[in-house]
């Protein structure tokens, strides 16, 4: 396969990035746009950071099914198609271990981190299937942002760890279903280690940004945290045809954390 010029590789394709106003989502939106895709940034908050302006902003709550219906109608109405769905929006839910996590916290985290990805995958398939006659055949890609907390037990709060474990398996089931139905839609999960984003704001406030980054970085074999763009590159790869034989796969981008034996939990005692 001859790879197209980077700036036109995804031209004509439409991508939705949930949580695209900040962090990993913003970096992914910028890279998808740079590769030629039309990007919809679907987020609760409008982008304000340096990476904003990658795409059209649509106010969206991933936990609300009505919001998904409205978003899909909007995108199919305006852009007329859907090719790429990045289910990235997520919250940590704050500290919480098995003894301190409340039912309320559990349900809030599941609603965004697990049900939000479920709804995002479901409506992605609906939208991609509607990208039909008269338009080039669909080559859909769903990228679900899980976490190393979806692989191991010591990398996140209790409710978050369960939700990310659900996303890992859901992604495989979605992949197998789309393959069985011959939809030409792939689905994969990404499992980041520590990435320097606003999700760590409470830690930055407690320790200072540089010290906090060093503290989390030291827990990675590679000795540092990731920048959001490093995750964006992986999401771009999974969104594009470069990964056309990958479906149901899990990609850890974690500076080596899950490759070997971890000396300490990533978590400060909570």
């Amino acid at each position, binding site marked *: 396969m001859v790879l197209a010029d980077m700036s036109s590789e995804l031209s004509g394709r439409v991508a939705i990035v949930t949580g695209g106003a900040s962090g990993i989502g913003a970096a992914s939106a910028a890279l998808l746009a740079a590769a030629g895709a039309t990007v919809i940034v679907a987020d609760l908050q409008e982008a304000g950071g340096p990476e904003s302006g990658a795409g059209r902003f649509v106010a969206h709550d991933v936990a609300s099914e009505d919001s998904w219906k409205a978003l899909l109608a909007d995108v199919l109405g305006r852009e007329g198609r859907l090719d790429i769905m990045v289910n990235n929006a997520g919250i940590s839910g704050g500290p919480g271990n098995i003894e301190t996590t409340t039912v309320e916290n559990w349900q809030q985290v599941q609603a965004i981190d697990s049900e939000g990805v479920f709804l995002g995958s479901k409506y992605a398939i609906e939208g991609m299937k509607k990208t039909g006659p008269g338009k080039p055949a669909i080559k859909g890609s769903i990228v679900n942002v899980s976490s190393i907390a979806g692989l191991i037990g010591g990398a996140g709060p209790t409710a978050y760890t369960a939700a990310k474990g659900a996303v890992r398996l859901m992604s495989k089931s*979605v992949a197998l279903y789309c393959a069985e139905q011959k939809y030409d839609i792939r689905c994969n999960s990404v499992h980041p280690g520590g990435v320097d984003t606003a999700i760590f704001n409470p830690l930055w406030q407690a320790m200072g940004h540089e010290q906090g980054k060093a503290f989390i970085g030291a827990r990675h074999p590679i000795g540092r945290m990731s920048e959001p763009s490093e995750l964006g590159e992986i999401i771009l790869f999974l969104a594009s045809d470069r990964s056309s034989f990958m479906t149901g796969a899990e990609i850890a981008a974690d500076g080596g954390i899950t490759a070997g034996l971890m000396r300490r939990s990533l978590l400060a005692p909570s």
Partner: protein
Amino acid sequence: MPRLDGKVVLLSGGASGIGAATARLVVGEGGKAVLADRDEAKGRALAEALGAAAHFVPLDVVQEPSWQAAVAATTEKFGALHGLLNAAGVGVRNTIEDCTLEEYRRINDINSLGTFLGCKSAIGAMKEAGGGSIVNISSVLGLRGAAHAMAYSASKGAVRTLTKNVALHCAQMKYNIRCNSVHPGYIDTPMIAPRLEQNAGNMTGRQSLEELHPLGRLGRAEEVAHMILFLLSNESTFSTGSEFVCDGGLTA
């Protein structure tokens, strides 16, 4: 010496299938079994049949107060809590396209919120007992996806990582409480009975499931119960946060 000498075990889903088979082994190995289930008739009947070392408490795993009451009833009846089996669960077939949000939430509530609440509610009493062992039933579908069990496999994936999170927390806190997950293949219990009736092509439902397993048959509830018994007993004291697969070779 019996393998569970005097240990008190609370079993959600204890009225049927894997939970019921485990309750029988617990009593047979000198332990006390508290069967906790929303199926009162079946649970009470089994507890009576098992005699003085068994007891039944009604439980709805999605309600935290119901779990707290079950733990309190256990320590009141038998004086302590050493073991917890989270076996209550529902098996439902659906796909990413036909599953509704309500259905996704219902399955995840019973299978994963229910297991979370079981762990959370039991830890206090286990600390008082000087330690304990929690066994969470996930599934092979907590390890591998399935096109037609989307919500179920998501809920079992949650149980897999939840188990590791609980194990590491208890280890860090030096509670002497272990927590492991069990991943059965298809086991011949009431849960899968409807599927055994559904013919698939020229195969019976049973044959189509048997065929998935290299051993060429379905598992028996007792076979999973023996793995759980090991995890509840002091024979497994160096195992925590681990995945115990019992699947006739399915994931090999």
